[in-house]
């Protein structure tokens, strides 16, 4: 049976070039980057080169880029690294953040920081009027994601940063679903902190980066040998950093090509959904990450649709890839926040296209999708 992978928002396979770079550096660069001798220096240079490359691609200074173990750690640094400096002050985030920010924010709440959650409109865009109101409470931090992982809506981070800075708050953006997928320029966005994860843009797992604007103070959340200028202890994952920089470079180069293809395929998929009937596309119609589609089908259980697609050789996800565990029922916090009709909300799947997908796979998916939706509706209607 055919296997079509349409779950790139969960994780992506590294580009072949990236894999090659990774494996080569496993073999050649085994010095520890913090060490003074030539082997260590070779590793150090490679690490700094990777840092420079990443910095260039997001318009940051190399010393503003810190290598971490991934998006979750970066998000945790942003919240827990700043909170101790502003005891008792509130923070603002949104209702549709990824768990890495949401769960951290809840933990901050228990440490005495009131947390305000910004609501979103039906398209998943955060409410700027609510932001303005909450900013009156003198929050120390505003953390709003650059692009949502379930519905793909791109947030007005630039406006958010401007409003927050006027009130003296720090601004963090979880850009895990944005970096490598849409152009990201930290200067233009005006954020103080940004999180990214390599495995979302065809880099390896277990590595990510954290942008920290020069002059912004953050305390380390991991104690140890003082690597990454004291912010992030632990032996530097040099091969991972090299591979991540290369992956980001390639992803950026491919923007035009992938965006064109994703648009065409999106139109094709939506037209098939129209044929099936009883569906809605979630998220903002224009301000969205290309290739990420959140589709809700009326009177269908999303998990059943995902499983049935899987059994027919197509991999998509329902809600967020990491979350659909055990007895947890219902649909995700993101879909809930959109305030859409329950009949639809329950039947939501996420389809995320990737660079290695081809036309035949999209054609195949469209046919299978129709078959599966109709099959499940048949169960419901007793046919």
């Amino acid at each position, binding site marked *: 049976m055919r296997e079509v*992978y349409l*779950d790139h928002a*969960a*994780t*992506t396979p*590294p580009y072949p070039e990236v*894999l090659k770079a990774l*494996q080569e550096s*496993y*073999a050649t660069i*085994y*010095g520890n980057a*913090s*060490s*003074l*001798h*030539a*082997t*260590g220096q070779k590793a150090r240079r490679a690490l700094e080169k990777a840092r420079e490359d990443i910095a260039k691609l997001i318009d940051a200074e190399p010393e503003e880029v810190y290598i*971490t*173990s*991934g*998006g*979750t*750690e970066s998000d*945790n640094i942003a919240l827990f690294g700043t909170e101790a400096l502003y005891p008792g002050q509130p923070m603002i985030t949104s209702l549709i953040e*990824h*768990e*890495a920010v*949401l*769960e*951290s924010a*809840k933990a901050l709440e228990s440490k005495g920081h009131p947390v305000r959650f910004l609501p979103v409109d039906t398209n998943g865009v955060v409410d700027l009027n609510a932001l303005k109101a909450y900013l009156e409470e003198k929050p120390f931090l505003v953390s709003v994601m650059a692009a949502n992982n379930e519905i793909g809506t791109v947030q007005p981070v630039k406006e958010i940063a401007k409003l927050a800075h006027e009130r003296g708050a720090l601004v963090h953006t979880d850009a895990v679903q944005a970096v490598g997928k849409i152009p990201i320029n930290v200067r233009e966005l005006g954020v103080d902190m940004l999180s990214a*994860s390599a495995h979302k843009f065809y880099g*390896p*797992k*277990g590595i990510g980066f954290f942008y920290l604007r020069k002059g912004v103070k953050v305390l380390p959340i*991991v*104690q*140890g*040998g*003082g*690597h990454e200028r004291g912010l992030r*202890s*632990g*032996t530097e994952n040099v091969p*991972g950093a090299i591979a991540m920089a290369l992956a980001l470079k390639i992803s950026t180069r491919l923007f035009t090509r992938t965006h064109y293809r994703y648009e065409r395929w999106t139109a094709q998929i939506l037209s098939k959904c129209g044929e099936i009937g009883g569906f809605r596309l979630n998220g903002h119609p224009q301000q969205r990450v290309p290739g990420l589609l959140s589709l809700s089908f009326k009177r269908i259980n999303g998990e059943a649709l*995902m*499983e049935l697609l*899987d*059994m027919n050789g197509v*991999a998509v*996800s329902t809600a*967020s*890839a*990491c*979350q*659909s*565990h*055990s007895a947890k029922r219902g649909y995700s916090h993101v879909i809930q926040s959109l305030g859409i009709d329950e009949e639809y909300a329950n039947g939501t799947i996420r389809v995320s296209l990737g660079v290695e997908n081809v036309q035949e796979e999209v054609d195949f998916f469209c046919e299978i999708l129709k078959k599966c939706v109709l099959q499940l509706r048949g169960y419901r209607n007793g046919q």
Partner: protein
Amino acid sequence: MIYLDHYRTTPVSEAVVSKMAPFFRDDFFLPEPFTKRGTKAEEIIEQANRTLLDTFHLKTGEVMYTSGGTAANNIVISGVLRDVEPSQAHAVCAVIDHPSIVHTYEYYRKKGVSVTFLKVDDDGWIDPEELRWSIQPKTLLVSFTHVNHTIGVIQPLEQLLPIIKERNPNTRIHIDAAVSLNAMDLDLTKLPIDFLTFSGHKIYGPKGIGAVVFRNNGLLKPTLFGSVTTSPFTPGAENIPGIVGLAEALRLAAEKRATYRLKTRRLQERAINLIESDIPDVVLNGPKPTSFGNLDAIPTQRAVDNINFSFRYVEGESIMLFLDFEDIVVATGSACASSDLKVNYVLSAIGRDHEMAHGSLRITPGWDNDEEQIDRFVDRLKPIVSRLRAQSTLR
């Protein structure tokens, strides 16, 4: 190149690289319940868990994967201490433990947790009596490093750990085995260890991955927050290639341990004998290795793959750089070579004065070395030391 700095990091063995290979592009999926790809990913992690538990002789237990040894030690210590009322908590570690332990306890000490930093004797050993009396009713956690990362001293776990549980059965024990596992077997059915931490890149596995093996998570509270699939302590996407690499590296380390011990022990003996006979005014830091005569004996005093000497009248960074010119890689405890200009705290703790600590070299052989390389290393080292001594103010 003669690479003698395996305690810092090791190359990834080819067997490990090829074991990891399919998980980058072919089976790159993340674990997820019920879907084919997701359950396969879960099974891969389960297999790795099994390998880890088997290696430590555990039938049941839990494993969590971290971004490395530092993160593993932080997850354990912070996991126990972060949410407790500081005045009601006490913890113990040794002054010579790895920075990821010492600095983390230092952080909690500042937050009001009382922490005992156990002193060590001139060879680096913890005093069992001091350990005994350090354990209090409110002692939540004791951490120490099994094999020390600087001087290779092996703490006698069989002797020390029962003392802790005897004094307070509720105290959890955390052992950092980062540089132990190439040479040492740890049988967790015989040792009352609650948390064991280590990392991939010290055992010929990849960087960016480490693990905590534990019987049950009991006291631990999560310290990182995010989406959880496999362990609430390590949220976020699972680094499956890394996990596979770590498990394979550990399996190979266990499989080849006897050979490794024989090999590095010969190299250690040769290096120590040559340096002591050819270079005057040197002092071995850390305990003497157990009798050289019996190569089959399991070492109990000093790890077989660690050599650490102080060279009187000279400074370590200079020696290290001259060796580097000859493509020989070692490490030094000199403050000049450290990023914070502090002299090596392990050497200070075993009573070396600043001058001796500055003039120290750590030589850690591994799989890729042979006798001929050790001879060449000492051969090059000799003129470097005498030359630097000739120009020293202290001669």
